């Protein structure tokens, strides 16, 4: 399982001097440190527990969900299991929602639903309330998934938002938005794309990117990375 590095890193060997470890701490980061230290002091968990959980959280990524889709494309029986019991189907790709870390408690909620696309139906997932996301099988949300911009607009202007991700669907394709607002968690199972006949599970897994699993793009042979959203710098930036 590899982490999903889609942001640029400055490793300090370019023209820029190495970045300081901490430039500025936000109020929320200060609050997290304070709560963590108090919890350790109080004995709610140990520093070792915290280290292990952080390591777990940092290494989970979208690969198990991608493999689930690839397996389902190849095995109709497994596909049926994915569509009826996502939690059980997750076991085949190494994710146990009842014990995701290998220690401690189950994942907060354990009801995974797999949304099957068809040639005439496309699913896309959002959480308008916050950023609910099937973390055990998909890792952490991309930053854009958490933004009010995506959350507010996807439910109301889904085709506009999808077009901004480069996905334009014809009117005869139903766009079905899934607003994930309770305990169910969702991933999208796209239609297996043309040009993948005879591919192995590993090859198929590579083209099922995180963005495909959220539903903002479609898998395509040769496309193995997530969309890089352009950053538009302010024309008249505020200096403060």
């Amino acid at each position, binding site marked *: 399982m590899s982490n999903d590095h889609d942001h640029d890193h400055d490793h300090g060997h370019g023209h820029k001097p190495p970045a300081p470890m901490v430039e500025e701490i936000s109020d929320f980061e200060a609050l997290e440190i304070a709560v963590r230290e108090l919890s350790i002091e109080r004995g709610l968990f140990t520093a070792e527990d915290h280290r292990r959980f952080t390591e777990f959280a940092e290494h989970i990524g979208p690969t198990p969900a991608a493999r689930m889709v690839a397996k389902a494309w190849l095995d109709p029986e497994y596909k049926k299991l994915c569509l009826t019991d996502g939690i059980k189907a997750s076991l085949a790709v190494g994710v146990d929602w009842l014990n995701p870390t290998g220690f401690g408690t*189950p994942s907060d909620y354990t009801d995974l639903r797999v949304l099957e696309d068809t040639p005439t139906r496309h699913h896309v997932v959002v959480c308008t309330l916050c950023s609910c996301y099937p973390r055990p099988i998909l890792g952490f949300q991309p930053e854009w998934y958490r933004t009010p911009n995506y959350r507010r607009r996807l439910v109301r202007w889904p085709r506009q938002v999808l077009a901004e991700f480069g996905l334009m669907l014809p*009117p005869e*394709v139903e766009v079905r938005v*899934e607003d994930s607002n*309770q*305990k169910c968690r969702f991933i999208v199972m796209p239609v297996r794309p043309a040009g993948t006949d005879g591919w192995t599970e590993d090859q198929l897994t590579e083209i099922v990117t995180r963005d495909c699993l959220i539903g903002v793009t479609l898998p395509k042979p040769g496309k193995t990375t997530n969309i890089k959203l352009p950053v538009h710098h302010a024309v008249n930036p505020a200096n403060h």
Partner: protein
Amino acid sequence: MGHDKEHHAKIATGKGDPQCFIGTAGGPSKFKVGDRVRIKNLPDIFYTRTMVYTRGAIGEIAVVTHESPAPEDEAWGHVDHSEWFYIVRFKQKDLWPEYPDDFPNDTLQTEFSERWLESV
């Protein structure tokens, strides 16, 4: 109320949440897949997970998902009474009057506890 801090961990370990609430809604679900329902416009003092954009809209039950305490109760630690939950499917046009007529097939699904739904 009256549960200790570890109550949730105790009931969910080995089962998961919402599985730990199976059988706690006090009977079968009131609605079934295909039923037409209207989302009630209840007051939401303090906490809810029912979005304003669905209030008053009519949709149909797509999935009967599970039993769980409603978020309005669970947020305050009241976890001893559950309700059935439903994924409801709406035509986009029924949620947003300005939704373009060019895409009449577009839909949206989201989930509600039983208290928010009434038969149409």
